[in-house]
């Protein structure tokens, strides 16, 4: 009967919208947390913390990763799958560099007596660690999707017509970049 293939069709129609609504939820999650920071600051005993330069590096790295992924998608559309593979690989590497730079940022904070938890922590220092860690938690999802794209590229699963999975993955990846830039500016101008 006709129903056999409706699942394929449903998937085609709904993958991107599903992602967009999920992104809306994540936006609200971080909006809730960052407005919590603002509300806490109103309370008075909110300490200022210096910004680690490593976070500035993170910003450039994640923007670069978005650009390389984007170039990868363009290459797929043009049928240049070799270049696409390279681009996705570069994106993957950059994502690990990003995490490394975050780690460096935390080390710097830690060495300057700014702690995530415990009696020497304040709510602003905890927020700083928490927000970055939560961003990375979401980034892990992005890395998984990058890996999927990478393996599918290697198995020639995409064509110049068929690249829905890449589009979904790249949308999420750009979103993660945007989210980081937002957090970075928020740290610069609100917390620091």
């Amino acid at each position, binding site marked *: 009967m006709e*129903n056999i293939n*409706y699942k394929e069709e449903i998937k085609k129609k*709904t993958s991107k*919208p599903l992602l967009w609504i999920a992104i809306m939820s994540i936006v*609200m999650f971080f*909006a809730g947390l960052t407005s919590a920071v603002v509300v*806490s600051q109103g309370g008075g005993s909110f300490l200022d913390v210096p910004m680690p330069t490593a976070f500035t590096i993170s910003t450039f790295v994640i923007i670069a990763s978005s650009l390389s992924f984007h170039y990868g998608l363009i290459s797929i559309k043009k049928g240049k799958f070799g270049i696409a593979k390279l681009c996705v690989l570069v994106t993957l590497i950059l994502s690990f560099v990003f995490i490394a730079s975050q780690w460096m940022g935390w080390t710097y904070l830690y060495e300057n007596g700014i702690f995530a938890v415990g009696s020497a922590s*304040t709510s602003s220092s905890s927020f700083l660690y928490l927000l970055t860690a939560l961003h990375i938690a979401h980034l892990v999802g992005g890395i998984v999707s990058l890996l999927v794209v990478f393996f599918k590229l290697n198995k020639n699963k995409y064509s110049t017509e068929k690249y829905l999975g890449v589009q979904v993955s790249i949308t999420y990846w750009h979103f993660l970049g945007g989210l980081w830039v937002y957090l970075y500016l928020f740290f610069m101008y609100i917390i620091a």
Partner: protein
Amino acid sequence: MSAHHHNENDFLFKYIFSTDHKMISKQFLITGFTMGFIGLVMSTLFRLQLGWPGESFEIVELLMGSWQEGGVMAPDKYLALVTMHGTIMVFFLLTAGLSGTFSNLLIPLQIGARDMASGFLNMLSYWFFFVSSVIMLISLFVEGGAASAGWTIYPPLSALPEAIPGSGAGMTLWLVSMAIFIVSSLLGSLNYIVTILNLRTKGMSMTRLPLTIWAFLITAILGVLSFPVLLSAALLLVMDRSFGTSFYLSDIYIGGQVLDHTGGSPILFEHLFWFLGHPEVYIVLLPALGITSEIVSTMSRKPIFGYRAMIGSMMAIGFLSFIVWGHHMFLTGMNPFLGAVFTFTTLLIAIPSAVKVFNYITTLWKGNIVFSPAALFSVGLVSTFITGGVTGLILGNSALDINVHDTYFVIGHFHIVMGLSAIFGMFAGVYHWFPKMFGRMMNNKLGNLHFWTTIICAYGVFFPMHFLGLAGVPRRYYTNSEFPMFDNMVDINEFISMFAVLALFAQLVFMFNFIYSAFRGPRAPQNPWKGTTLEWTTPVEHFHGNWYGDIPEVHRWPYDYSKVDANGEYVTGEDYIPQTTPLGEGEKDGGH
């Protein structure tokens, strides 16, 4: 449809790990009702204590064992039960139970889709809900008992594990359960929104959608925007509890000991909680309102009055619900100007709410009403929405709220406007779509009995609470017999508790009717209520994919009841025209 292959996995995938929206809908309904019944029994138990403080009830001891040593509820158990009752009713029955059941059942059927956008996410949504239900129930049996800080789990009671008995393992499990619940709710809402926006059949424009679907859509949008904020609130709470952060805590002493927390504020939690909490009220209410719109129109055999106004008012309610949360916090020492702003936005909600009530009544007006149990419960909803809404005007007003905040006035108000309205909408929906869900009819006589006893008991329980509240009786108190100024309230409390016990028995009637009819009820015809919407064009028996052959095309809005032509004759010879009937020559589509 894929071939019928018979093996032992059939049962497993058909009934347990189903990805079919119709089966998932039933799973939500049964789990939700089970939780709801447990919540109801809890309320009856603590009502016994409130009505006859200190009196011994042996039957209760039999049921609850050491929970009620000597048949009298212990104070800490009282707090635990109140908390669990509120949590279960609001989240498990009226959020997951209500939305999960009807969004799942009706969205694909009424928009003309073969299933949800993602059957897999949908199944996950149910299973997360199930697991969170189980954890919530288990939390009743851990050391120290269930969470006891109220369903709003304000810190510090919720933030310091050593604060009261229920602040320990019970609170931890509450948080675990709710985190899983939120994930379930997000997955569900995600699916509902995308399905409605992307999988409508040909001809089903947004302005031809039944109002149920509009209600589910707006509900789901509220869900994806507000639940993540609750998740963030819960996350900070977990950090404070387990990792020694100070998001919600500052300058705290416990047993004369200074605790190591500086800089946080419990008010922050209230902001985050109520940013979800108020939209949550509408997450609970809107599906019920949508269901009512549908039933009121079908059962009065008249087009819904003000279709567009109904959509507009739901959108307005949805939007406003995000900017009123401060009305729960008038007593937190907020700037009076801010209080005035929240008063203003809150009172604004009265306008779209009034539009809805007006439209329901106008639809019913001079209708040829079929008083089925579904119609009765819908009218019941209109009643409770008015009586509960009116006291909302008082509570929304900061100057007045300060006097009755945290009293039984609030309990009366929100039970009527949110609890009763939503549960009435849910009952209405079950009576109306039971034939679609189970292929059988429920018994009308028992349904009517259920309705009348329920509404009488409901008002008997909640109406007098307003007077208690005005007299200053506080909510969440184990007993009021210790305070001489409440001595003359004993009779009212007894009166309320008698109705509460009766209400419990009324629900047994429903339970019997439901279970009996599901197996033994008369077989349902395809379109028992002569409805116009697409779900009644599907075969009575269920299968994955909903329609044999092509999905029907839609040609008109969903409310063509009693439509007559220029000669005053029914266009099709019947008093309803299905959405699948093409428009006649020169005939105008409704809803404009």
